[in-house]
């Protein structure tokens, strides 16, 4: 995280990639890995530095927890591609994780404000 801001791009915070992938699948419906990477790039407006290969590690991890499922399908350009979709327990997990994240972010924001004021 200390190296997070050099060259103007932010590294993906440890553990937040899974959350990003889950949110993307929740809002976009089934996608392949490349599509997920493009969507994250689009949303972050190129402020995020993401090694796109790590998306696949994340996808594997989420499958193991049963939060997403994978099926082979055909992509827009007629290639075979693996499509990932969020499952019901994945949605539950996303809600819980989002609340957790917002609480942490809220605490840190308040903390930083008090430091600035004093």
């Amino acid at each position, binding site marked *: 995280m200390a190296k997070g801001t050099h060259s103007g791009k932010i590294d993906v915070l440890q553990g937040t990639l899974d959350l990003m992938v889950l949110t993307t699948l929740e809002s976009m419906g089934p996608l392949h890995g*490349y599509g997920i990477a493009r969507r994250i790039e689009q949303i972050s407006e190129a402020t995020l530095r993401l*090694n796109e290969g790590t998306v696949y590690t994340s996808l594997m991890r989420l499958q193991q927890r049963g939060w997403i499922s994978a099926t082979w399908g055909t992509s827009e350009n007629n290639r075979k591609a693996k499509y990932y979709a969020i499952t019901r327990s994945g949605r539950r997990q996303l809600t819980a994780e989002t609340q957790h994240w917002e609480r942490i972010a809220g605490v840190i924001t308040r903390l930083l404000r008090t430091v600035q004021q004093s």
Partner: protein
Amino acid sequence: VKALSQLRAFVARLRFVPGRRRLLDEVTKELESHVELLAARYVSSGMAPDEARLAARRQIGNTTRVREEVYTMNSIDWLGGLAYDVRYAYRLLTKNPGFSVAAIATLALGIGATTSIFSILYSVLLKPLPYKDPERIYSAEIIVPERREQLPSLPASVQAYLAWRDARSDFSEMAALDRGSAISPAMPSLSALEARACPRTFSRFWESLSAVAARSTLTRNSPATNASSS
């Protein structure tokens, strides 16, 4: 609750173990097509193909590491190690069949012998007699002190038995026993001795052994003939 969810996560991981090679191949294919799609995108925005490919590779990062992580995630280290050990042992055993047969036979004989010796010892010495208060049952034998060297103990004669039975003794009941079969004068509890399903030799062994154990308690009752018991 945390331990439970960890256990569930572990069990969920197990489902991926058998297919881990296929999953690795699939991730490899996905990474390849990811690079191609990225490169095509750069080419369409005006980049030279070689340059586009390099840029795509840079953007996807270290694919070897991703593949390694995916594979490790789907394998359980000790399971892999165990499979390796079993395969190694199997190879050694088939390479050297003579030695294997000898080793396996030794083990089998050793285990078999130990088991049968224990079961004999158990039925002869350790297993309690199938009667109520087995520790109160004794066997009486005759010991002639001057001839103990040659004859440690003699079986009770009919005369001795009748004499002991009619005399007042420390025993509440008495019965005569001829090797495995008992002549039992109306004594319900001891007549059960007859029913004892025990090989003759072992029961004799047991009888003489018990005679030695209880000798001292009875010596004072009859100085000439020692009724011994156990």
